[in-house]
C-alpha cells in the first residue's frame, strides 16, 4: 500500500508587482521567518530560486521574480524576442502564483501585467495552474474584505478566460493564518496521488477512532490531508469545529518551531491532554508530521497506545 512516488521537479512562478509581498510569503512558508522578520527584506533582483524537497520525491522549485518594472519588462521581452532561450522563465511552469497588493494605487497596471504574463504562459506552459492571491488583506476593514475579493476575483477571472486558464483565488495576509490555507491548496494541487493519503488516513482511523487526523508536510507545516470522524456520521455535533482550524494549526506549530529555535533546537513531538480532548503530534516519516485528536469520553485514555499505533501506521507510509 506504499504511496507511489514519481520523482519530479515542479517549477512554481511567483509573480506580481514590487512590494506586493512575494518574498515575504516565500520566507514565511519556506524559510521559517516570522511575519515581523519580513520588514528586513529588500527588493528582489531578477529571480531568486528556492528549492524545497517536498514529500517523497518531489522538489518544489520556486522562482521568486523581482517585481520592479525593469525586471518584469525584461521577463516579458525575453520571452517574446528569444522564446527558445533558457532565460525564458515561462517555459515548463507547473504553477503560477500571482500576487496582488490590495492597497495598490495602480490596479490597471497590475492587471495589464497579469494579462501579459498569462499570454506568455498560454504560449509556453498552457497546462500551468494559476493561483491569484489578493494580499495584505489585513489592511482592509473586515466588513469590506469579502466584497473587495469578489470584485477583484471576477475581474481577474474575465482576464484569464481568453487564455484558457481557470484561476483559483485566495485573500491572504502574512499577519494571520490565511497564508497557510492558500499555500496548502497550492502545493496539494501538485501532489499526484493525494487521494491515496486520504484513503490511508481513513483506514487508519477505522482502527483508532479519532475525532480528527491531519497530515502535515514537515518543513512548511502545510496540511496535506485530513480525515474527520464527524463527516461519517454527520449528525455529530463536532461539525461546529472552527473551519479555519487547519491553517491555524499550521500557524501555531510554525510559531512554536520558531520559539524553540531560540534555545537552538527543534521539537519532535507534542502531547496535549486538554479538557475534553487529547492532541498528539508526532513525526510520521521523513517528510510528514501527523496530528491526532482524540475525544476523552469515547476512548481509553492511553497516550502510549496512540503513539504505538502511529508507529505501526508510519510503516505504511515509508
Amino acid at each position: 500500500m506504499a504511496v507511489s512516488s514519481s520523482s519530479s521537479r515542479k517549477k512554481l512562478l511567483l509573480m506580481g508587482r514590487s512590494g506586493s509581498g512575494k518574498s515575504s510569503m516565500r520566507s514565511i512558508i519556506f524559510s521559517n521567518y516570522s511575519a515581523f522578520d519580513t520588514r528586513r527584506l529588500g527588493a528582489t533582483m531578477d529571480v531568486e530560486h528556492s528549492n524545497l524537497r517536498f514529500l517523497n520525491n518531489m522538489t518544489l522549485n520556486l522562482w521568486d521574480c523581482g517585481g520592479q518594472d525593469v525586471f518584469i519588462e525584461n521577463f516579458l521581452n525575453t520571452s517574446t524576442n528569444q522564446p527558445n532561450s533558457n532565460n525564458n522563465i515561462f517555459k515548463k511552469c507547473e504553477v503560477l502564483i500571482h500576487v496582488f497588493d490590495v492597497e495598490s494605487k495602480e490596479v490597471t497596471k497590475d492587471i495589464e501585467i497579469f494579462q501579459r504574463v498569462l499570454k506568455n504562459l498560454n504560449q509556453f506552459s498552457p497546462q500551468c495552474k494559476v493561483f491569484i492571491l489578493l494580499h495584505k488583506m489585513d489592511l482592509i476593514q473586515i466588513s469590506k474584505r469579502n466584497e473587495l475579493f469578489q470584485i477583484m476575483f471576477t475581474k481577474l477571472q474575465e482576464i484569464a478566460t481568453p487564455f484558457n486558464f481557470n484561476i483559483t483565488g485566495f485573500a491572504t495576509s502574512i499577519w494571520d493564518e490565511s497564508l497557510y490555507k492558500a499555500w496548502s491548496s497550492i502545493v496539494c494541487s501538485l501532489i499526484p496521488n493525494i487521494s491515496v493519503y486520504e484513503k490511508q488516513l481513513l483506514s487508519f482511523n477505522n482502527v483508532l477512532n479519532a475525532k480528527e487526523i491531519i497530515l502535515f508536510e514537515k518543513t512548511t507545516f502545510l496540511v496535506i490531508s485530513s480525515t474527520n470522524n464527524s463527516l461519517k456520521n454527520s449528525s455529530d455535533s463536532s461539525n461546529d469545529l472552527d473551519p479555519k482550524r487547519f491553517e491555524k494549526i499550521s500557524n501555531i506549530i510554525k510559531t512554536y518551531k520558531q520559539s524553540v529555535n531560540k534555545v537552538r533546537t527543534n521539537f519532535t513531538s507534542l502531547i496535549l491532554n486538554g479538557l475534553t480532548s487529547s492532541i498528539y503530534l508526532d513525526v510520521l516519516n521523513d517528510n510528514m508530521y501527523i496530528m491526532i485528536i482524540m475525544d476523552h469520553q469515547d476512548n481509553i485514555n492511553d497516550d502510549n497506545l496512540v503513539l504505538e499505533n502511529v508507529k505501526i501506521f508510519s510503516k505504511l507510509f515509508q
Partner: protein
Amino acid sequence: MQSASDLINKDNKATILLMGLRRCGKSSICKVVFHNMQPLDTLYLESTSKPTKEEFKSLIDLAVMELPGQLNFFEPSNFYDSEKLFSSIGALVYVIDSQDEYLNALTNVSMIVEYAYRINPKIHIEVLIHKIDGLSEDFRMDTQRDIMQRVGDELLDLGLEGVQVSFYLTSIFDHSIYEAFSRIIQKLIFELPALENLLDLLIQYNKFEKIFLFDINSKIYVATDSSPVDIQTYEVCAEFIDVTIDLDGLYETGAEKLLLEDKNNKPIKCISKLKNGTILYLHQMIRGLALVALVRIDNGDTSNLSQKEIDDNVKTQLSIIDHNVCVFKKSLEKMWESSRIK
C-alpha cells in the same frame, strides 16, 4: 467620575500604583501585560485623564492603579486622599520614558518617593526605564547609569539615604516588561520564600533545568526556582503556554475553558520532546497558574539500550515528575487556603 478616594484599597489586595509623566507608557504597559494587547496597537491609546484601577486574580489578588501624569498630588485638595492612598499600596512603579528628555521625570520621581516613603516606609519603590527598544545596546547601559546616579543624588539631597529603589530596563516590544513585572509582583507575595523552596525541592528530586510558576493570562511568573533566569528560556516557556492554549482552544467548544477550574476536571497537561534531549512540560495548577518547566531527561549510557528501553525510561521519569508535580500542586492549594492576602 471616580475620585482618588474611591480607589483606595479597603480590602487586603496587593496594590501596585503606576505613575509617571504623560505619554511615558503607563496605559500601554497595563494593556500589553494584563489585556494581551498587541504592542503596536498601543499607538492608538488615548491619553489617560483620570485615575483607573483594575483588578486581577492570580495566586494573589492584585490591583493595578494608574494615575494620570498631570495629576498633582501636592495640591492641598488632593493631599488627604493621597496620604491614604500611599499608605495602602504595596509597590510604587514609576515609569520614565527613556526616549524623551527625562530630567523632569527624575525630579518628579524623587518628590513622589520622598512623599511615599514618609507615609509608608514599607512600600517597594520600582523605577522602569521604559521604551528602551529605541536605544542602542550601549546607550541603554549609559542611560541606566545616568538615571540611577541622578535619582540617587536627588534622594540624598532630600535626606533619604536608606531608601531601596530598584531599576528595570523595559519595553513593551519584548519580554523585558514581563520580566520586570514578574519581579515586582513577586515582592508582594508573602509566601514567596516558601514557594521558592518548594520549587527548589522539585528541581532537586527531578531532572528539571528550570521551573516557572506562570500566571497563564499575563505570562508573568509569580515564582521560579533559585537558579538564574535566562531570558530565552523564559520566552520559550511563556510561548509554550500559548501553544497549549491555542491548540486546545481549537478543539474545545467555548474558548476560556482552560482558565476554568473544577476539582473534577483533570488538569491540562502538555509535554513536548525537543531534539536536544530536553522536554517542555506544562501542568495546570490552581488559580489560573501553570507550572512550566524545562526537563532534562537523563538516559545515562544508552549505547546498549534498545529504542523501546529508552522510551520506557523516559516514560518512567515523566510519571515520577507528574507525581511530584501533583504533590507540589497540593502544597500550593494548602498554602493558598492559609494565605494572608486573598
